[in-house]
């Protein structure tokens, strides 16, 4: 408030000072104080100002505010679209990663199942082989036992023959068959 009063006083001082200076010079004073020029100035001020007001309020202001609004909307739209694209990309990446993890898990499961099946088959084959080998071993053992029995039987006969021969040579008479057989059985049992 005070500032505007000072401004008014300063302006008045300039006005009065220059006005009186001009008056002293005798050049008819300030043109600004010539009231004959007031009417045309005011008439044309009104015309010019109204014309500019019409131009501004009807043409310029709507055009500019419309342009600024459209620009703002465009910027906001672009920002939203960018945000949405970013969101989409993020969800795509998440989906991709999930799928990758699933696939990896599935592959691992497959591998594990395959491994289990393989080892089961191998165990079965091993069992078959084992059984076969066991059978062969059993057969072989039976054969060996039979051969040994044969050999033992032969051995008994041989021992009987040798015993008879030795007894005949030593005693000069054939040996008692029953006693010899008992002795041989005792010897065989003692072994």
């Amino acid at each position, binding site marked *: 408030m005070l500032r505007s009063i000072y401004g008014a006083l300063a302006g008045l001082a300039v006005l009065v000072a220059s006005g009186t200076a001009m008056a002293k010079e005798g050049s008819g004073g300030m*043109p600004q104080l010539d009231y004959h020029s007031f009417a045309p*100035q005011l008439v044309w001020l009104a015309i010019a100002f109204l014309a500019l007001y019409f131009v501004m309020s009807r043409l310029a202001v709507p055009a500019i505010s419309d342009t600024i609004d459209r620009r703002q909307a465009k910027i906001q739209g672009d920002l939203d679209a960018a945000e949405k694209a970013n969101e989409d990309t993020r969800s795509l990446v998440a989906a991709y990663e999930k799928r990758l993890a699933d696939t990896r898990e599935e592959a691992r499961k497959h591998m594990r199942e395959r491994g289990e099946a393989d080892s089961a088959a191998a165990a079965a084959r091993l069992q078959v082989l084992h059984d076969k080998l066991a059978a062969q071993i059993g057969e072989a053992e039976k054969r060996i036992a039979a051969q040994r029995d044969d050999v033992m039987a032969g051995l008994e006969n041989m021992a009987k023959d040798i015993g008879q021969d030795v007894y005949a040579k030593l005693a000069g008479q054939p040996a008692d068959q029953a006693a010899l057989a008992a002795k041989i059985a005792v010897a065989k049992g003692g072994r």
Partner: protein
Amino acid sequence: MHSPMEQFEIKRLLHLNLFGIDASFTNSSTWMVIAVILATAVFVWGMRQRALVPGRLQSVAEVGYEFVAGMVRDNVGDGGKKYFPFILTLFIFILFCNVLGMVPYSFTPTSHIVVTFAMAAFVFVGVTIIGFARHGMHFLSLFVPKGVPFALLLLLVPIEIISYFIRPFSLSIRLFANMLAGHTMLKVFGGFVVMLGIIGGWAPLAFIVVFTGLELLIAFLQAYVFAILTCLYLNDAVHLHH
């Protein structure tokens, strides 16, 4: 040697009479019309494309618009939007008149008190009407500062009333006196250049160059001050703030 005041003389270029009123087309009218045409060129022709990415002239128009829009928004706030086209017109009209006045051989319509006073009086009357229309008799509380002892009010209320009624004068004389003083100064120093001739004339010539820059600043500044004070007065009327 011409008088420094001669540049302010009103010359009737075309004698016109409107219902008994002298409506002659003068040198002042010429430059008012040129200001309006140039402002229209910038704000309408410059905006013709309404481009999202503005060109040069469109940028000028938008910067001017945003400048005044920010001024109205900051100083009047809500309820100021209605008056924005008027403030914009006021600012642009005064700015173009002031700046065009810096063109050699041109005329500065705002260097005449009758022009600036007409605008200031219109603002004053308009603001007062808006104030009474919005607040009725309560608008008179503008003259009573809040939280002041009664004894001081006896002193302050008259001061407030005087300062309110001095507004149109301070508003108009500030602009008019600045234009008058600046142009007179330039003319006086121009006279010195001629007087001192080729030997001593360089000093006032250098001063004129610097002072022309200052005058351009003042041309803008006074348009700004006129517009912002109008905004402040409008704020008083709209919001009854102090």
